[in-house]
């Protein structure tokens, strides 16, 4: 399942903190027209690359980007250092 929220949290050396809940589903809604616009160009690139044997690779790479995006749910990075803390999580 695609992540719907991105949680960002940070604390700097002075103790100032910020927390951000980024609604990714809104970003997807913005990205959707972009995907639709780029699709014909990707198909054209695949057609051009097909005689050289790279056509299917272009299409597979395009689809793989969405697969990776779909697998991001649960990805978490938590760093605590002397300079501050940083936390990122895809929910």
């Amino acid at each position, binding site marked *: 399942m695609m992540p719907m929220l991105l949680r960002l949290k940070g604390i700097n050396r002075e103790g100032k903190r910020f927390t951000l809940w980024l609604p990714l589903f809104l970003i997807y809604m913005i990205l959707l027209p972009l995907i639709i616009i780029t699709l014909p160009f990707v198909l054209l690139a695949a057609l051009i690359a097909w005689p050289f*044997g*790279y056509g299917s*690779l272009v299409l*597979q*790479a395009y689809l*793989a980007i969405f*697969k*990776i995006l*779909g*697998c*991001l*749910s*649960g*990805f*978490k*990075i*938590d*760093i*605590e*250092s*002397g300079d501050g803390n940083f936390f990122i999580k895809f929910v």
Partner: protein
Amino acid sequence: MSEERKKILDMLSEKKITAEEAEKLLSAIAKEEGNGAGTVKKEPKYLRVMVEPGPDSKNPDRVNIRVPLKLIRAGLKLAALIPKSAQSQVNDALHEKGIEMDFSQIKPEDLENIVTQLDDLTVDVEGKESVRIFCE
């Protein structure tokens, strides 16, 4: 046939218990066996990398990373899309870094096997920093 089941059937044949009681006892045993079979090893979903300061470390940095195994699979599949003509360049770059590996020999099914075997991976490094890599 288990020992308990045999005992219940013996008791039934000796008419020490009724058929209904025997049925209840047998279903209780079946339920217990079912619970026992339910304790199958859970399939891990994440690869965890934890770096913590060791006892002698002056560096207080801590890192905790959780990567979904699905993401690793997807990433490896993307790496498998590298055209054959570029694989020799990848091999050369790896060779320069001191990694002797033939990238062209890695097939998608091998990558799947690698991820599957990650389930049992546990790396513990104790030094200035304590590093733990495991699946959960």
